[in-house]
């Protein structure tokens, strides 16, 4: 279980203190598929980074399975079983998709094992396995590889920070099916920051974050009907709903 207790994150901008996360409390039960949504600037991505240790809270505690991880490094949290898919995937010179998947898995994955993770995110493995993880790949391809790194880790908690950000609608349409697959196959806890209706629709629970606080945290069926059609739950164009799994 992941528990955030009275968490605060305050930054200083132009000599003024700005509260991004404001005495936030949240419990995420093990094995749940939870989507965090809410208005832009509400603190969602910051919250994800605080959980991974990329940012350090000003005050409050983060507990993971009862252990206080608030002061642990990113590496320690990763080793404890938390994974993180970045909103903007990082580029590397010389590091290939296969290298990155092997680093993610923490072992010398065979080519076919690595390809399996790429297939899970709808990628034609043979075309990508030896490609460098750099700007020669499209935004959608980099997003999928980023998600594949989290799958390759196979940890208890997987956090995805706005997987839809920065990619075109066509690519996103592919991505939603990836998350639908994760929904059915993943055994651990999945935490996704998203505005997309199709992602929200497959959640067990939805957490609404606004002004750095939890405004609502309920089962999907309770909260989903209220936010469909609002900016918290953007629906995709119906013309894009046909799956295109060419490989």
């Amino acid at each position, binding site marked *: 279980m992941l528990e955030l207790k009275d968490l605060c994150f305050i930054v200083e901008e132009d000599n003024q203190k700005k509260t991004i996360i404001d005495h936030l409390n949240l419990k995420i039960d093990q094995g749940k598929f939870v989507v965090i949504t809410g208005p832009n600037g509400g603190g969602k991505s910051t919250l994800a980074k605080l959980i*991974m240790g*990329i940012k350090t809270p000003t005050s409050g505690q983060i507990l993971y399975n009862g252990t206080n991880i608030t002061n642990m*490094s*990113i*590496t320690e949290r*990763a*080793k404890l079983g938390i*994974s*993180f898919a*970045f909103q*903007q995937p*990082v*580029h*590397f*010179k*010389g*590091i290939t998709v296969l*290298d990155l998947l092997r*680093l*993610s898995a*923490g072992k010398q994955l065979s080519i076919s094992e690595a390809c399996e993770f790429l297939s899970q995110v709808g990628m034609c493995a043979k075309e990508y396995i030896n490609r460098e993880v750099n700007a020669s790949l499209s935004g959608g391809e980099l997003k999928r590889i980023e998600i594949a*790194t989290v799958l390759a*880790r196979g940890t208890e908690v997987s956090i995805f920070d706005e997987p839809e950000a920065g990619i075109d609608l066509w690519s996103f349409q592919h991505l939603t099916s990836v998350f639908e697959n994760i929904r059915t196959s993943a055994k651990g806890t999945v935490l996704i920051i998203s505005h997309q209706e199709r992602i929200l629709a497959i959640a067990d629970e939805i957490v609404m974050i606004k002004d750095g606080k939890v405004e609502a945290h309920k089962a999907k069926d309770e909260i989903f009907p209220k936010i469909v059609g609002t900016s918290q739950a953007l629906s995709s164009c119906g013309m894009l709903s046909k799956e295109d799994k060419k490989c």
Partner: protein
Amino acid sequence: MLDSIQKQLLEEIADLHKMPEGAYNIRANSQMAARNTTSDIDIITKNDVSGIDVKIKDGTKNQSVHIPVVMDKSGITEMVYNDFFVGDDCDVTIIAGCGIHNPGEENSQHDGIHRFFIGKNSKLKYVEKHYGQGEGTGKRILNPVTEVYQKEGSYVEMEMVQIRGVDSTIRTTKAELDKDATLIVRERLMTHDKQTATSIYEVYLNGEGSSTDVISRSVAKDNSEQIFDAKIIGNNACKGHAECDAIIMDKAHVVAVPKLDACHVDAELIHEAAIGKIAGDQLIKLMSLGLTEEEAEEQIVNGFLK
């Protein structure tokens, strides 16, 4: 016979675990240790100066020449002149390299001048690795000079690698290209401690349709210093590109001096130079996969120099 240190140096610089196939000339502590010639590739010792002439017949294809140099005695200073005459319509690989193990107090220095005369429509791949080791306080110094003269339609690809252990190096490469000739250079360099490394390139694109691509990737650690000085001179309708991409760490110092000199209206010359530390987001990504910061750095550097 080669001793165990010399054998290990050979593995480092030429991936050689035993005597290579084809033609070779192995030089150990300023003496010829082994040589083999073939019907197409002759190796002749020079009479006037220290060094060899390698003569490759017209039309020689899919053959290789190994010419490694190993030194494991302290205090050797040598100057070697090697000339390579590659005939027309050849397709060959030349693997050079120098490994120095300096066990003593005195400096070990190997300076070499390699001249390549490449015939019409020939293709050459040249690989040169430099490596140094040894517990002694004596410096390990390598100053290679490479000159390349390319005839019409020839293609030369040079891979220059120096990853560890060389205290001081000045690498000078000069090339002159005739019509439709192409020169590709890939340099990979890492310096550490108080090492210094200077790479000077001067490529003359003399013939119409000639082209070059000079790419250096380097990592400077600790208190080391690197200078990358690349000059491309376009004397005809030609294409030239030089790129220096360096990761700077610790208290290192990196200088990139790209220079383009166009003497023809159809000369298209480009240079790019980028120096910077390892990006923070790269470290964070790898740490989020469970690597420590040091492990993440190592992976990023290894990938960069791959």
